[in-house]
């Protein structure tokens, strides 16, 4: 169909399939075959005959050679151009993907922050015990109460008294929870990589306090019934601020986001990183 007839050295005419009526005859015939089913069988017979003629006629158009007509080419010079020549490419600068954290703090820094914060939150807690019940052991026993064997319905004096067991359990709980919270904090750091103190000092303590407030009744009912939530929040914020401050002093590391997809997928190939370097040099 798209062959060009060359006469001499230039194209004068183009071969195109010749118009033909056979397809419409065949289509009409086939439609009548079906229409006959809903009207009169005679129409189907007529349709079949038409379709047969159409098919044979069509066949003779295509075989042995496709029927063609030659369409003369008349040349009109058309130039492809635009009035809007100026092209402004959208500049993509290096920090285009800034919203992905390119750098963040390592998770280990969160654990360090957790340890520091865990130590730092002890003074406000002890201060609270001293101011409200004149005993620094009050908060210790509240936290470590679960470690005391016969600690069912303690009186206020009981809680304010000093117990070795209570201190030990409280230290253990404080250490483990501080480490775990620090780990969680480290894992959350890429959410707000540039503001670890806001995340650790304000957002996380508020969320954490809310969660404890909602669930503490189930975990440690004694603690729940004696806790002062204002002071609790103060010590949490102290934890967070100190943890955040410790984290912010750490070295930042690069996230995987800045690496090409292939590297992130862990697919290795010879020369992969080499090419990368070459391109950088060219640019």
């Amino acid at each position: 169909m798209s062959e060009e007839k060359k006469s001499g050295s230039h194209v004068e005419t183009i071969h195109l399939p010749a118009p033909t009526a056979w397809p419409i005859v065949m289509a009409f015939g086939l439609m009548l075959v079906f229409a006959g089913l809903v009207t009169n069988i005679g129409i189907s017979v007529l349709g079949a005959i038409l379709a047969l003629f159409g098919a044979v006629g069509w066949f003779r158009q295509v075989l042995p050679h496709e029927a063609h007509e030659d369409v003369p080419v008349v040349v009109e010079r058309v130039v492809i151009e635009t009035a809007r020549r100026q092209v402004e490419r959208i500049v993509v600068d290096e920090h285009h993907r800034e919203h992905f954290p390119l750098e963040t703090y390592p998770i280990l820094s969160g654990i360090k922050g957790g340890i520091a914060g865990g130590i730092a939150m002890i003074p406000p807690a002890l201060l609270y015990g001293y101011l409200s019940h004149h005993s620094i052991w009050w908060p210790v026993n509240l936290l470590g109460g679960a470690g005391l064997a016969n600690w069912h319905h303690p009186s206020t004096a009981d809680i304010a008294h000093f117990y070795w067991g209570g201190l030990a359990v409280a230290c253990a709980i404080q250490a483990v929870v501080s480490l775990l919270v620090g780990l969680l904090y480290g894992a959350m750091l890429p959410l707000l990589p540039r503001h670890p103190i806001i995340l650790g000092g304000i957002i996380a303590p508020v969320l954490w306090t809310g969660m404890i407030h909602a669930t503490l009744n189930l975990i440690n009912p004694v603690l729940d019934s004696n806790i002062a939530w204002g002071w609790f929040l103060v010590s949490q914020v102290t934890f967070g601020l100190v943890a955040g401050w410790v984290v912010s002093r750490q070295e930042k590391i690069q996230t995987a986001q800045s690496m090409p997809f292939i590297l992130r997928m862990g697919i290795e190939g010879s020369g992969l990183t080499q090419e990368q370097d070459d391109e950088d040099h060219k640019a």
Partner: protein
Amino acid sequence: MADRTFPIEGTLDLTPAHVHEHTWLEVLHEWVTTVDHKKLGIMYVLYGFFFLLVGGAEALAIRVQLAEPNNHFLSPEVYNRFFTMHGTTMVFLVGMTIIFGFANYLVPLMIGARDMAFPRLNAFSFWMTAFGGLMLYYSFLGGSGLYGVGNAPDVGWFAYAPLTARAFSPGNATDYWALALIVTGVGTVGTAINVIATALSMRCKGMTLMRMPLFVWLSVVTSGLTLVTITPLTAAQIMLVIDRYLGGHFFDTQAGGSAVIWMHFFWIFGHPEVYVLVLPAFAIANEIIPVFSRKAIFGYPAMVAASVGIAFVSLGVWAHHMFTIGMTSVSNAFFVLSTMLVGIPTGIKIFNWVATMWGGKIRFATPMLFLTAFVFQFLLAGLTGIMLAVAPWDWQLHNSYFVIAHFHYVLVGAILFAIFGGLYYWFPKATGRMLNETLGKWNFWLFFIGFHVTFDTMHFVGMLGMPRSIYTYEADRGWGHLNLIVSIGAFIQGISVLIFTTNLLWSAFRGKVAGNDPWDAWTLEWAAASPPPVYNFPTEPSVSSRRPLWDLKHPEDPDWKYE
């Protein structure tokens, strides 16, 4: 390149060809016997547009009937015929024909070919579709149905069994429905084969698969999907015809047959069919949005992958039309999840269109207005689709006007808007004249307002519990005012379509002369004359990027450097 002289050596006849005045009979003969893809494409679109007016008139009659409670503008029998024919017409005679019209006209031009792969098959397919439509509408005169008078199909466009059995649908109205659609189905499959063969085997030099315009890509995907969706419908309709003519028992529950299996077969066709219709709308969006944003399409490979993904996923979601038939909870869960999966590739597309517009130098000419509305409305349509994909929600709203509103949001809000945009965009190519912009703006804004008045309100009517396909309703149901608003919106849309028709007729003869490239576009069809000569391109083009005309217009900054 732009300065090079015509690449043909030797002498060329530069005198205008003698102008021969054709009699109307010669013109008619020329159009009837043509195998030219451009003429066939135009005929497809005109034929589809004619039936759009017919189907639209039916919709308006339905809306008058429903505008107030206890109305008797139509008789119940005519009402049933009208909603059946409205659905059947709009899907098979409007949607399918217009989209294949676009594909016929544009695919060869976009890939730099002279014609379709099988020009005669192309003509045959068009005439099959055309005659099928005429046969369907002949049933208004020639059908002898329940009432002994001229009778069109009245079993709903999905023709659920057992209503279609001889016992419940005597006469031959239902046979007209089945047989006429088998006829159009043959035509549709023929064109689908043709489009695929053309796009794969007729590409010009340099037009690799990943350089094909996205319109061509989506036409291929649509055609591939057509091959596996229209044929199950044909198979099911053959079964129906066997039941009705030869006393078969496929859908005969009295003899152990199953009515539910018809639903399965129909929706195995019916749901992918929606994607067959909407993918070309995406195709149009993929061409128009970049040109009017003056940016290359964002994420070309992702668009291709998403289109193919939609085609595959769409084959596994059909039973979400059937949550209320009592499937097992495993089936329900499967179809809920697979349906929601469709949201992923479609979401990719919406993001990519928005990203294409983002930072672009947008011109809000009429085509772009329509396509901007398309993106917005298609997103909303998709969201109600996700809502309906949730089985319990669907149990509540199944077959209510909420569902009607949802799929009209897709079919009108997305597909028809894209088709209008496409017509404004390519009309200059096909006729050499621009459509009038002022009328175009009126067309757009009226249609936009009318569309939202009608179909936004329809959601509420559905939430209030109005079921589909009902003839009328009592005043105390509280649907009256909302239905009146819906009907008013329908008439605003009707006026808008009339404005478009006027624009079409007026501009075809009196419109501003367009030139070859009125939109400053980048695909190959704009390198041909307007209207293109019968052979499209005097010499075979060759391309080296996705935007060959951009390369010619900006030789200092061509695309192939970046691809």
